[in-house]
């Protein structure tokens, strides 16, 4: 339990650093760290497979994409911060309010009759059985989703005549 507090504090800290740091590349690195922390949470929840997925896909692949996006922007031209302090403040207050509302509401959740999980919950095998037996259809249709994403990405990403070539 103590470890959970430590991990959570770390997660929140690195997550806030993602927003607060000025350099976008630092933000991405903080984000990677945040993902690692979240993977730690998965472990605490006995979801080892999700931990692995989180590290491989999010901390690995998606962060690479983030970096590419950042590198595609022209960072040499340091554009001044377009948001005024007031805007930032308003956004922070609003986000905080939403957080407070959700926390205040969740306070009332009664956890006394929560079933303790057994050691097999969250194991890969259980996941596999549910995913490939009960959820066949969404699983197959996810391939269509990937397909659309891929077609869209290559279509939009294709260089066309008249565009700049680096």
């Amino acid at each position, binding site marked *: 339990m103590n470890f959970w507090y430590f991990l959570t504090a770390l997660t929140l800290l690195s997550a806030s650093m993602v927003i607060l740091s000025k350099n976008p590349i630092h933000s991405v690195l903080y984000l990677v760290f945040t993902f690692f922390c979240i993977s730690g949470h998965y472990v605490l929840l006995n979801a080892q497979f999700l931990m692995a997925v989180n590290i491989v896909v999010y901390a690995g692949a998606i962060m690479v994409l983030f970096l590419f996006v950042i590198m595609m922007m022209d960072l040499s031209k340091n554009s001044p911060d377009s948001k005024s302090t007031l805007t930032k403040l308003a956004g922070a207050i609003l986000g905080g309010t939403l957080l407070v509302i*959700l926390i205040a*509401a*969740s*306070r*009332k*959740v*009664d*956890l*006394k*009759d929560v079933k303790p999980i057994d050691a097999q919950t969250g194991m890969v095998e259980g996941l596999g059985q549910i995913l490939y*037996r*009960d*959820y*066949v*259809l*969404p699983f197959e*249709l*996810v391939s*269509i*989703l990937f*397909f*659309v*994403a891929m*077609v*869209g*990405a290559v*279509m*939009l990403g294709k260089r*066309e*005549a*008249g565009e700049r070539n680096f």
Partner: protein
Amino acid sequence: MNAIIALSLFGISNLFLGFLNNRKILLPATLVFILIALGLNFADWNHEYYWFNNMLKTNNLSVNFVTIILLSTFLVVAISRSFGDDDEHSHPAEYYAILLFSAVGAIMMVTFENLIMLFVGLEILSVSMYVLTGSDKRSLRSNEAALKYFLMGSFATGILLFGVALVYGATSSFDIHGIAQGVAKAKEQMGGAYGPLLYSGVILIMVGLLFKISAAPFHFWTPDVYDGAPSIFTAFMSTVVKTAGVAATYRILSISFPSVYGLWGNPLVYIVCATLIIGNITAVYQQSFKRMLAYSSISHAGYLLITVLAKRPETNSSLLFYSLAYAIATITAFAVLMVVSEAQAKNGKADESFEALNGLANNNPLLAFSLTISMLSLAGIPLTAGFFGKFFVFSDAFSNPSSLFKWILVIAILMSTVGIYYYFKPIIAAYMKKGEVAKIELSPLYKFILILTTTLTILLGLAPDLVKNIF
């Protein structure tokens, strides 16, 4: 259900048809594909099937919704004119394939039994739309619209997903009937142990879906995106996406959460009123026909939500009728807008303002007439389909015993009066303003579609029971 599989396969084959380097065959092939899917869809008529461990359920209601979706897709494809003949900058094979895929997503959204299916369907539809919105790569507006849509859309999806997670946490079920039981049980126990989680989950799911159908105050993306996207895809978005979104909202609210009507109904009342007022009032000021149609689509979301809110036995058929009437009229309007704005293009940029329509009737009587009928239908003038759409919706609202609905109705009727004002702008421009639009050559298919939609609009306005009995 079979339509989903067929359309997925057709979408993939469409991509490979594109390698034949023959733009001509893509359009007819896609139309045939959609017709086949439509036929497969009817195979489920008069049965009640559960598919793949209760992932999907088809019944007459869903078949009807799928029919509207496929019909709209058919019409949109039919007026796409193979996306011009610019091989370098337009990719018809990809566009058609993505349109078919998004139809798959839309069908999932109207037949889902499981929230996972809803989510996957919504994502397929949304991702397709992000791509198509930005498909005009040389237009800065299109790029901006796509990015905006993507940012806000993923935000909304996140909210929806959060809601799903909370509801799952509280009811331990993704199945919409299972959730309904869980919710009913929680309601009996005054919220039960997980009340706050469950209730926030319900609200967040509703908000996520309302975003997709652009109900105020989650409508902000709509005008910018509809305006920026290429017109043909705007037509698709404002019909298919809206129909699917409304159907999904209706499905989940009426099946899973009827026992907590007060919880989502109370905020929805204000959302409906805000949607009607903002949609209609803002449309008045617009100078661009396309942007006006965007606001009009917001306002129609409001009318559709009225009947979702009214929760009458007739809601099914009212919703279907309204969606059908709205879809047909909107596609007609876009069909006219597209050819006219291209014919009136200035410096290579399509002119989408009302002025572009000035004097349209002189040389293009068919276009002007179709435009008039579609505008009359959207405005809800009798003897057009739109009138009965509104009539059914209003009578649903009226027959709800709650006195609140009388007020909603007053607002709705007032706002439909405001609607007349801006729906008549294009008609006035076409018939009464001085101007010159050269004769626009239309392909036989295009003409056929215009005549078909116009006839349907009038036919449904003369004899709504033709389809109303089916619904």
